[in-house]
């Protein structure tokens, strides 16, 4: 799996960085001011500009090697968007991207800790689990977080690499909303990370704000829909890499990346 490298600190990028989202439509404006639109619905283009500064030689070497490996614009790679929620449909656990054990009751529209109705209740008479798999290297730094509320014992928020390594945090059985955090930074050769919420027979939990971010510490919740923060088949938007060395062991450069689900 070819994946844009993280920095030695576990960060995915440095401030400031920029992103751009572009759609396309044709618009006819009539003499009276009315408009008729034709959307080019399949077209979408996202791009990022990532300035990197003061990287140590080893860090910059990894960036340079990766750029050389892709040959600039030639080969695709997976781009993990900095600061984003890597889960898809983070509020809609009934979506197919969430793998559910048979018999699990998923009820959306429950009261959430923000005063809305975006939480989801999960329960089952037998042991249950709901999970989403992220196609990103398990050797990277991640942090999972979620608001969970349960009166049952044994409910856990869990991350694993699907190859035997896992971490989990137990949910307190006091029926109080808490935001749980589960940092992940393990040595693993797996190309996936799995986020689970699981419970024993008869247990129930209310969930809100499920999130996995590509960084060490969690940030505020970012609701997602169909597109998560993982972009497979991204490309560099440049054929040359301009490097600058401002002092010993202080390397800088700017990378531009683009992604489109549309046929190129």
């Amino acid at each position, binding site marked *: 799996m070819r994946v844009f490298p993280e920095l030695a600190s576990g960060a995915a*990028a440095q*401030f*400031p*960085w*920029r*992103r*751009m*989202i*572009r*759609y*396309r*439509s044709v*618009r006819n404006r009539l*003499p*009276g*001011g*009315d*408009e008729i*639109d034709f*959307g080019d*619905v399949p077209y*979408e283009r996202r791009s990022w500009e990532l300035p990197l500064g003061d990287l140590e030689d080893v860090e910059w070497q990894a960036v340079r090697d990766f750029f050389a490996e892709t040959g600039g614009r030639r080969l695709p790679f997976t781009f993990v968007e*900095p*600061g*984003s*929620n890597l889960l898809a449909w983070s509020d809609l656990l009934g979506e197919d991207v969430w793998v559910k054990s048979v018999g699990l009751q998923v009820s959306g529209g429950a009261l959430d800790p923000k005063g809305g109705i975006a939480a989801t209740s999960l329960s089952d008479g037998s042991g249950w689990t709901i999970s989403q798999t992220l196609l990103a290297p398990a050797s990277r730094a991640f942090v999972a977080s979620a608001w969970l509320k349960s009166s049952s014992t044994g409910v856990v928020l869990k991350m694993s690499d699907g190859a035997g390594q896992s971490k989990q945090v137990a949910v307190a059985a006091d029926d109080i909303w808490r935001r749980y955090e589960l940092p992940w930074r393990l040595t693993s050769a797996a190309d996936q990370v799995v986020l689970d919420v699981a419970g024993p027979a008869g247990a129930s939990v209310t969930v809100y704000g499920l999130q996995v971010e590509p960084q060490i510490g969690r*940030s*505020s*919740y*970012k*609701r*997602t*829909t169909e*597109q998560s923060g993982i972009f497979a088949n991204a490309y560099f938007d440049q054929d040359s890499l301009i490097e600058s060395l401002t002092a010993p062991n202080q390397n800088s450069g700017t990378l531009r990346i683009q992604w489109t689900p549309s046929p190129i």
Partner: protein
Amino acid sequence: MVVAFPKLKTGALTQYPVFRELSWPAETIQFLDMGRQLYMDGSGSLRRWQLNLSRLDESEMAEVIEFFTAMRGSLGRFDFEDPMTGELVSNCRFDDDELRVSAVDEFDGRTVLTVTETR
């Protein structure tokens, strides 16, 4: 899922400074004797707002991006609350098909949105 133009965490729609443009589209024919004939090109004024957003946290930025994505740029129509009057204006769209967002620092996301009223 119903999507509404996202508000900031404070409940505000936007930040100062906000700009509003009122326009009365017209066509003019200029004659050789310097007289002119002018007629209105539309049925009334259309409004356009420019919203300058800064110091947004990650979730506020994500809401803006999700809304722009749901609208697919300038294609979708939505109701927009005029930040100067509080009037709910229907049939608005983004002016542009492109959204640029800068993450300048932690808790400092910045973008500029232009919303146009249409008929």
